[in-house]
């Protein structure tokens, strides 16, 4: 049984005259925490969008769990187990925290128009079972108190936690986090990092785009560095930290 979850080959994307992404080879395995770092403009977010199918690639292939998903709709890919979050949190403002989680966990069948109209006993049962999972997750994220508040009343950090919680309701195989620590205070960062590390123990692979290098080095088993659309380094944190190419890329683009 293969350990490989995601396999990207020759993925390219151009915007006008600019080559935003040109990745020859990229693989993600089960149970890994991988960080994607690189100077601004390196193409990390675009790469993220491409592999989660929120943008169309110009050429290349993407395989997830053995299936060719290169042209698959983003929502279908999410259903297969690739769940992502967003740089600017996208919680459902005018729904309660609990409803946010309910939506995430609710089965697609139950959300069918007819099924919702009829509301069979099995639908009602499934909704009840959801309650347990929601409460557990909220407990882990320290959001239980805010269960019935509108999502928009949460603080910035709490919204990040909610977005994470929602994603977890999907029982993802790969969790893709787009700058999970952006704008988050140090204490909450610690908390988030701990949660992310623990996820790994539950068999979820994590790929995160991050600028916070300390955090990255602390919890990642593997670090991938992008610059100018290409992957320039890939390996254990210590290896990458002292890789000449990486140092050049960061110094060369006068960043951070």
């Amino acid at each position: 049984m293969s350990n490989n979850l995601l396999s990207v080959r020759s993925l390219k994307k151009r915007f006008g005259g600019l080559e935003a992404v040109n990745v020859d080879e990229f693989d993600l395995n089960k149970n890994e925490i991988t960080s994607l770092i690189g100077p601004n403009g390196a193409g990390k977010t675009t790469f993220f969008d491409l592999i989660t199918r929120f943008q169309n690639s110009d050429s290349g292939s993407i395989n997830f769990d053995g299936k060719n998903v290169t042209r698959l709709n983003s929502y279908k890919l999410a259903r297969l187990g690739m769940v992502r979050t967003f740089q600017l949190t996208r919680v459902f403002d005018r729904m309660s925290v609990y409803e946010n989680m309910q939506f995430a966990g609710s089965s697609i069948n139950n959300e069918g128009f007819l099924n919702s109209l009829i509301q069979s006993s099995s639908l009602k049962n499934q909704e009840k079972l959801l309650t347990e999972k929601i409460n557990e997750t909220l407990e882990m994220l320290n959001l239980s108190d805010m269960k019935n508040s509108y999502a928009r009343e949460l603080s910035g950090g709490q919204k990040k936690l909610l977005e994470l919680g929602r994603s977890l309701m999907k029982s993802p195989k790969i969790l893709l986090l787009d700058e999970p620590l952006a704008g988050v205070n140090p204490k909450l960062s610690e908390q988030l990092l701990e949660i992310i590390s623990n996820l790994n123990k539950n068999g979820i692979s994590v790929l995160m785009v991050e600028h916070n290098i300390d955090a990255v080095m602390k919890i990642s088993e593997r670090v991938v560095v992008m610059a100018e659309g290409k992957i320039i380094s890939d390996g254990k944190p210590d290896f990458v930290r002292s890789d000449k190419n990486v140092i050049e890329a960061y110094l060369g683009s006068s960043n951070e």
Partner: protein
Amino acid sequence: MKKYIIAFFLLAISFMYIFLSNETGGARVFVNLMTFAGIYGLAAIGINVHFGWTGLLNFGHAAFMGIGAYTTVLLIPHSLGREGVVISSGLPLPIAILVGIVAAALLGLLLGLPTLRLRGDYLAIVTIAAAEIFRLLVRDFENLTGGVYGIIQFSDSLQNSRPDFITRFSESYDMSPAQFWVGVLTWISIIVVLLILSRLKKSPWGRALRAVREDEDAVRALGKNAVLLKLQSFMLGAAIGGLSGIFLVFNYGTVQASTFVPVLTFYVWAALILGGVGSLGGPALGAVIFWVIIASTDSISRFLFESPDGQQLAGVRFVIVGLLIMFFMIFRPSGILGKKEELLLDVK
């Protein structure tokens, strides 16, 4: 809660006003008003599903109302166009109504499928344009629709089913039995539709729709098909609109292309905004209050102009409609029964 008390008072005052300002024939005026209010309320419930539940801007509702009306009437005995071509056979009314509703839903599918991925304000323009195309086509294809002459002599299909006790009741209070019957059926339909919608609102589907309204990308990232959800909502609102259109033409007794014009859509929107976007009963309440206001504008006209002619009556009426829409959108966008926390104001 406070807003329900306010709503109750507004209704009470409105009804008192109607009966007080019409010493004779108060009941007749009341039935007329409530029937129109019911019809517009039902239509407004339809666009509430679009806008209040899903955040879709549909300014072409008149087309859905129109296609429901035309389809149904053409399927029952009627008389068509300038020559008065008589078609004396047809489907049983309940089936014709069902087909009309389905036709409206299908138009929703046809229109929605390509356009629902458009951004909010563009969808508004597209729906207005589509409704305008519908109106122009209906007006021009006279052989099919009777064109500007329209369709008449179809009411019997509905009035034949009117129970005797209804007829006796309305005659004893000097109301039009035919209109009373349409009114009764309309309000029964509103209750049935609201029961169904209430069930849907609390269901997983209704919840999913609200999520789509909030953030479509997040919905996709969580594995749900946002476009399908929007399409289903669009078809549902269209179907409800279709039903309201059917009642509208039975109320008039004729179908004409000039009925389904943008003004109709704007009236329905005014009723929705007034009553409360997103709330279940709001649209119906808004329609009643709206029609009372419209009825009272005639007295305002008489105050402003000594003996106002038709043009001036219409003018004052619409000036007030315009002001209502603006006023409520700016100062009280949640209307009478809407929830303030659920407003769509800061959607950019």
